């Protein structure tokens, strides 16, 4: 067992690739030369524009003078009154330049229109119809910039009876039937934690923007992309709609986690386990006699007798660290999991070897660790520099205007 010690914390911070400051690398990345105007606020739209920035696009984030509300969202690195202290904002807006413009002010709306004339992609998250009311809708902007890809990211989309309805992460999870089957049988439906629905919505907007860019590259026209969080969640709900139509009603189910010494694991013995593995696991757990026990000898039997199985495995697991269980049972080719906390992620040897985490230096808060590229294409870089301070690039981009 000693061989797993190598996975134990702490790994020195220096294992992460530290990036102190990076200039715009306009000659690198698959989106180099692509200009993105990011008018979006909150989570979903900014996450989309972050991905475009990561692939090398030049992204200008436009905020109202008071800032994107995400600047006031927890968790904070420090003082909650400081508009540069939100971890959420810092994460969602990396690799963008930032300007402030109030679109309700005519002169500033004109500046925005000029920026849009020069843009390839525009990302926005306003209530449907708002930009049109200012003369800044897709029809207005595409008149003089027909190649523009205008990505609208909203709770319910640009069309349909709920288009004017307001949303949130939990509302999207509810309406897409994602959350109805999450949680325990005797409790209320439970949402996936964090801002997961909004992140998935942002990812959908990213993929759709890349699709629209592909079409512009190959067919020569821009268009309006409509992303609805409810649509996205209905796509993300991959069992309920089909299973119910086929006569099987999905319900909330008990958990299959068992307690380890320092957290939780799922032993994963109910599927994907080769014949012959079970006796080895019984040996490992110090209960060789169970190798012949009819309740557990096949995957199907183990599924049927899951509660009894969890008790057997649970009494073994309770004395062992979760990551040791994970590595040990994975080495026997079972599909085992352990519940990692954010602390565990930062010392994961797998993540360290792949340099998934990158550190950016913040002048006030020091080293800030960011999850890295969402995918890799050969040696292509992932552009990463800190989110803009409010209005940081007003002078550079808006000049004296």
């Amino acid at each position, binding site marked *: 067992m000693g061989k797993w010690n190598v996975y134990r914390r702490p790994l020195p911070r220096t294992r992460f690739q530290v990036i102190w400051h990076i200039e715009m690398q306009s000659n690198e990345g698959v989106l180099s030369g692509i200009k993105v105007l990011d008018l979006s606020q909150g989570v979903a739209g900014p996450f989309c524009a972050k991905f475009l920035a990561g692939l090398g696009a030049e992204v200008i984030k436009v905020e109202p003078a008071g800032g994107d509300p995400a600047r006031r969202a927890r968790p904070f690195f420090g003082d909650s009154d400081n508009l540069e202290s939100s971890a959420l904002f810092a*994460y969602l807006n990396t690799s963008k330049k930032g300007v402030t413009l109030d679109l309700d002010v005519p002169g500033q709306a004109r500046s925005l229109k000029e920026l849009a004339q020069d843009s390839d992609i525009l990302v926005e998250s306003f209530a449907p119809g708002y930009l049109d009311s200012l003369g800044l809708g897709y029809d207005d902007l595409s008149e003089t910039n027909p190649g523009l890809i205008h990505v609208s990211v909203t709770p319910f989309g640009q069309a349909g009876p709920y288009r004017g309805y307001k949303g949130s992460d939990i509302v999207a999870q509810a*309406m897409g039937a994602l959350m109805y089957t999450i949680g325990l049988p005797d409790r209320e439906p439970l949402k996936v934690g964090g801002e997961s629905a909004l992140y998935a919505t942002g990812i959908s907007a990213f993929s759709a923007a*890349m699709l629209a860019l592909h079409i512009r590259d190959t067919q020569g026209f821009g268009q309006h992309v409509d992303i609805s969080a409810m649509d996205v969640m209905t796509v993300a709900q*991959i069992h309920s709609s089909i299973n119910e*139509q086929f006569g099987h009603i999905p319900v909330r189910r008990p958990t299959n986690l068992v307690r380890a010494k320092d957290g939780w694991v*799922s032993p994963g013995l109910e599927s994907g386990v080769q014949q012959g593995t079970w006796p080895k696991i019984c040996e490992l757990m110090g209960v060789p006699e169970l190798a012949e026990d009819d309740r557990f000898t096949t995957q199907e039997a183990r599924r049927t007798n899951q509660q009894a199985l969890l008790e057997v495995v649970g009494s073994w697991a309770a004395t062992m660290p979760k990551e040791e269980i994970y590595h040990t049972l994975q080495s026997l080719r079972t599909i085992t999991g352990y519940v990692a906390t*954010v602390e565990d992620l930062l010392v994961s040897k797998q993540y360290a070897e792949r340099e998934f985490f990158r550190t950016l230096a913040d002048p006030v808060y020091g080293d800030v660790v*960011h999850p890295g590229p969402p995918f890799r294409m050969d040696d292509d870089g992932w552009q990463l520099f800190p989110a803009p301070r409010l209005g940081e690039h007003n002078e550079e981009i808006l000049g004296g205007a």
Partner: protein
Amino acid sequence: MAATPKKDLALHGLRVLDLSQVAAGPYATMFFGYMGAEVIKLESRFRMDINRGRARPGLNDPRVYPGGVQGERPYDRTAHHVHRNINKLSVTLNLAEPKGKELFLGLIKVCDVLVENYRSSVMDRLGLGYDSVSRANPQLIYLKISSQGATGPEANYGSLGSTLEQTAGLASITGYEDGLPLMTNEVYPDPVVGILSFGALMAALRRRRQTGRGCLVDLSQREVTSMLLGESVLDFSVTGRIAATMGNKHRDIAPQGVYSCLGEDMWVAVSAGTDDEWLGLCRAMGRHELAGDPRFKDTGSRQANHDALDEIISSWTRGLDHYQAMHLLQAEGVPAGAVLKGSETIIDPHIEARGFWDVVDHPEAGIYKQTTTPWILSKSPRQPTVPAAGLGEHNYQVLGGLLGLSISEIDTLVEQGITGDVPDPSA
């Protein structure tokens, strides 16, 4: 949906060879099909896509068959196969045999994209890893979706959607307030990765236009899933705070939760984050006096008195249908949504009006409503759903049409078990 001529579809002319199985990969290639690409789903008679289930399932097989009936070709009828393998041609080849490998490399030469999500080492072990396929077709884009990525000490570990939620940290922030981590029954990382994979491939195709060369796209499902809790990673790295479960509550929005409605297991989700939304909630409930209640005067005090608020809101929602509660709240500007079941989403008037569902008549499974795309493009419509194909249904069309094999040559391959439309009994 009005049919668009094939040649006008966005991805017309692109050809995808799809070795992927379960959910993440099949979702990505399903979107390719919707946008007009030709997708060839390649399986083996000895090892079908897990979505299809067993060749001869037992009576207790946990998979879902339409009406509970397995039928003569159960592997063409399972819910997951019917739902995820739409818009694809079905071909079988035994990649363990030299002849199967040869034909596979033949297909590689005429495809733009290869997608697979086996355990990380499987393709290399078959001698069909990136080096081999890129030698056969230097312009090929190879999307390798794996549990942990193509490299690293855990590269060959297996995973399910539910274990990815654990190892990526998502489960640590999903759960009721008692701290017990929970996973989604919807294997959330799979569709999310499927959607992202589509964008990654669009990026790789653009790169190919720039460089003239294909590439390997290395996508780790675990990494993508960790990106769904990025703010908590940043926060920990600065403050040492470890994000935990918080039920349906939100760091900045109070009240937020699901509230019981009329009927069994019916709920409405509410999140009133701003003062305006709180006042709207008071109006919707007809409880104007609460607007001046000091317990609820700002987000902080509403957070502190969340339990009392939950009781007040529940006592109102309990007498309402979940849709009715949603409409009353939204009319007052409060973000709210009925907690829908799958059977309710397929008749919801809003996404129906958006044209989200396709009505499909599957030859084996009958008529059902199909999930489509998470985007609507104003000038580039998707194609109508093509029902999921039976195993090996397009063997002759693809091996004949793309590789130039004669009918008798393909007949011989069937006799040798290299291809065919009936799975090996062991599968």
